[in-house]
């Protein structure tokens, strides 16, 4: 585990949590996490979301990581609630749920064949999954 990267990500997470979120009334949610990611397999995190809140999911990638594919899935039914590949790999989404729900956030790094041949391409690393919420 690269502790330096983890410390940097944690610091980033700490600073990021109070700035834009507070403007919109969002507060930091403790289900946020630092997640190891790569191009081979998806990392998956199960989050409990209450219908009392609106949630903002944000991916903050480690320096050098190009594209992150993230999806939000209802794990019981496998219904895809959000897929950022359909929105140009945007790294932020807000969710408003009618009923409380467990969602699975699935994260993977994106690599083209050209990327994989590029010596400087970062094929694994860490991302911060930053979750914020505010009462409806």
């Amino acid at each position, binding site marked *: *585990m690269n*502790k330096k990267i*983890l410390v940097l990500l*944690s610091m980033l997470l*700490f600073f990021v949590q109070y700035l834009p979120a507070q403007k919109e009334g969002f507060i*930091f*949610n*403790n*289900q*946020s*996490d*630092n*997640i190891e990611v790569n191009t*081979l*397999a*998806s*990392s*998956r*995190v*199960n*989050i*409990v979301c*209450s*219908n*009392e809140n*609106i949630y903002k999911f944000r991916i903050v990638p480690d320096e050098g990581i190009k594209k992150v594919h993230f999806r*939000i899935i*209802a794990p019981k*039914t496998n*219904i895809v*609630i*959000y897929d950022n590949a359909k929105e140009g790999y945007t790294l932020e*989404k*807000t*969710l*408003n*749920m*009618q*009923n*409380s*729900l*467990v969602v*699975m956030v699935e994260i993977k790094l994106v690599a083209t064949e050209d990327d994989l041949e590029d010596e400087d391409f970062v094929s694994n690393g860490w991302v911060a999954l930053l979750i914020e919420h505010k*009462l409806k």
Partner: protein
Amino acid sequence: MNKFKLLLFASFFPIFLHSCSDKKRQNDLDNEKYAEEKSRIIYRIPSPIEIFNLLQNAQLDFHEQVLNPLGNWENYNSLKSQALNMGIYSADLAYTAAYEQYQESLLYFNLIRKLGNKIGIGNVFSDEMAARVQNNLNNADSLSTISGAYYKGMIDYLTENRKTTELALIYTGGWVEALYILCNTIDTLGTNDQLMKELADQSLVAQNLEALLLLDTNVIEIRNAYTELSPLFDVFNEVEMLSSEEIQVATVGDEIVVKGGSVYSFDKAKCGNLKLLVNQIRSTWILK
């Protein structure tokens, strides 16, 4: 190739092959381990603070008698009791901070520092953080923020240092204490439909916690905690489903709106059963 070289080659070739095969087997094992590790799902549990928001929204009063007495901490000598009660005291801290009980917050924070040292996670509680608590005793927002930051720091530390047993037990203790406080401070438990629905929503947390504990039942502390919690999981598994519709997703502006899913509730009898079980489990855990 002369005879000697041939003999030498013939002698070492099987060793070479064996070594290659060992290396391949090791690589296969590494790949399998890697795939297994990657296929694991991380289960996150909301912090107790979120449950206490429900109490605040319902404008319920603070009840000091529901807190785990400070003096109990000296009884906790096993890893299981220390970690479970770390979660319990952390929930108590969040409860006192949410209700602006400044002196109690300070007492519980100091106690958590001491217990943290016993578990080997004393690094999380820096002198700087203690000073921040002391300096913000009259500021409810800051105290809640610090309480949240300390909880996050503890979870991050345990995650990064792969202390999965302590993490699972702290999550467990924190959730049970939050449920205990919820069940024992609502006078209208069993009659307030909205609170019963919100209590029933805890079945989603129960699902995540059960899945998290099941990942490590080879660890005796986790297996024992899981066994003790099983009746509680059963109650949540039998939660009444008021309605269930297929999930529908719509985009409204920048927001994804998720409609459908399931609506859960408890009836009065199940609420009573839940309270009884939570009280039993929690009273066992805080005594040893």
